[in-house]
């Protein structure tokens, strides 16, 4: 109790330090808030606003509000339904494929056996590799003539498709290359959930005569549902912003066969300089993300 002699926390009412200390939590939090207002919220609002203008980067002095013109142009745009379809194709395709295969991988890594740490570590490496490296490497692997994939297929006397040049195959190619990292990512997240499932509960189910599948279906799956929800939500949201894996691999082509909203906004706004029109695509994208998040919450996130 020696410390009782010391002065209590400084409370000099007028000094700046005393003020900051009494309001320490606010002082600690507000720099973050101000930065985030400046670099995300205000730009977000500006983008929504730009959707109602004819702003472009070539004659940016002469912009004015044009009401809903961008949106009526959007509705009449023959590319729009294709791009929305591609985006849904990518998001649903990768989320389902990555999560299902990732769950399988997580189940394989769940058991404790000698060397399991080795596998868990090595499956981290694709997640940590820069997406641009992944994209460039897969572009080389999928090359028609010089790529390894068609070379292996030729050794096995299988047909060798032009992966990146075929409108039907372009999106599946993007999804396959996405799985290389995505499966590992989902596996790492879901593994954490699997390892937290109560052993007593599983053994009780076995005692009651449940087989492996029943234990998985009725004990494990309900226990990991919260983390499954987060993993699926994060994956789906991340796929909306997927850039390198499309831009570098297929450049959105052939034609617009693998162009998603993310690429379309980038191309329209920053390549063709039609910022206002790009922003209306942005509003469409934000709406699509919101619908996706609500749908995932409805199927996986609701507490039952």
């Amino acid at each position, binding site marked *: 109790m020696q410390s009782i002699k010391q002065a209590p*926390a400084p409370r000099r009412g007028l000094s700046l330090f005393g003020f900051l200390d009494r309001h*320490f*939590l*606010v002082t*600690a*939090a507000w*720099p*973050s*808030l101000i*930065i*985030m207002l*400046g*670099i995300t919220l205000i*730009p977000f609002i*500006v*983008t929504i606003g*730009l959707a109602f203008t004819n702003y472009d980067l070539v004659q940016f002095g002469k912009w004015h509000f044009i009401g809903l013109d961008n949106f009526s142009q959007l509705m009449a745009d023959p590319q729009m339904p294709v791009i929305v379809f591609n985006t849904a194709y990518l998001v649903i395709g990768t989320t389902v494929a990555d999560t299902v295969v990732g769950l399988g*991988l997580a189940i*394989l890594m769940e*058991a404790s*056996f000698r060397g399991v740490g080795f*596998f868990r*570590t*090595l*499956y*981290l*490496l*694709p*997640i*940590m*590799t*820069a997406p*641009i*490296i992944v994209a*460039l*490497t*897969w572009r*080389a*692997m999928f090359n028609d*003539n*010089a*790529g*390894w994939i068609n*070379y292996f297929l*030729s050794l096995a006397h299988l047909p060798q498709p032009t992966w990146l040049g075929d409108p039907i195959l372009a999106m599946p190619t993007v999804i396959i290359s996405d799985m*290389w990292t995505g499966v590992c990512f989902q596996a*790492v997240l879901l*593994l954490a959930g699997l390892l*937290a499932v109560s052993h007593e509960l599983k053994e009780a189910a076995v005692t009651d005569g449940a087989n*492996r599948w029943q234990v998985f279906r009725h004990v494990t799956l309900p226990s990991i549902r919260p983390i499954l929800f987060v993993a699926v939500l994060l994956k789906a949201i991340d796929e909306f*912003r997927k850039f*390198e894996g499309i831009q*570098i691999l297929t450049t959105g082509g052939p034609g617009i066969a693998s162009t998603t909203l*993310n690429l379309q*906004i980038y191309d329209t706004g*920053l390549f063709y300089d039609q910022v206002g029109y*790009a922003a209306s695509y*942005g509003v469409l994208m*934000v709406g699509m993300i*919101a619908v996706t998040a609500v749908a995932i919450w409805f199927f996986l996130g609701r507490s039952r």
Partner: protein
Amino acid sequence: MRPSRRIGVLRVGLLTAGLVIVAIPFVWILLTAFKFQVDAASIPPEIFSPFTWTNFEKVFQGPYLQSLGNSVIITVGTTIATLVVGVPAGYAIARGRFFGRRFLAGFLLFSRMVPPVIFIIPLFLFFHELGLIDSFVGLILAYLSGLLPFTIWLCASYFSDIPLELEDAARVDGCSRFQAFLRVALPLAIPGVVIVGLLIAIAAWSEYFIPLLLAGPYTTPATVGLVDFVGVDSINWGAMAAAALALAVPVFFVTLLAQRGLLRGLTAGAVKG
């Protein structure tokens, strides 16, 4: 439900087969980086070809070396800035009530949902006005848009694991709130903060989209510089692979050294969120 021996063998077999698939692109990079340009583009591909260092000589003599330096500056700057601003904010979220808390917490979720392409066009216009295009300050600010919410979120989860009693005891002993944070809570949270720092550094090192738009000749990082090896009509795969190797190897070492912590950091956000 003891796993039988047969299942054990099947498990290791499947995991090994998966690792082979994971390894193939890495093997391609490693082999291609040491090939002559002719061999790297040969049709049909040659898996093994004569060995050469020429790709590395080319990569480390050209502008790519400067872009690696830029990547280091951006990564270090972003990591420091994010931690200095984000760690106290994470503490504030974990520790109590203040004006703006609910807004900040909701905002973290919001900024996780909205993709960078939505922010980037206005940021480009603002930065153009402010002269922040092609500047390290501007790039670091833009990187914060994704990394700061992530940091605050993870740090909040680490701080809320630290018993409040410890800080209360320090306050009774005469510490100010700031001192209680700096001398009691922060040292206990350091292992978590280090992991957050590593994850931010890896993310900043790997970022491509933001610098593609906001960087310029003086600040181009290696991720953007890497694409310069992809010409309009021909790709120098050997040089590209050598450059990719230079970009990937540091991250590999960090991952292998800190794998346990990184695994925990990657999953903490999801488990608690």
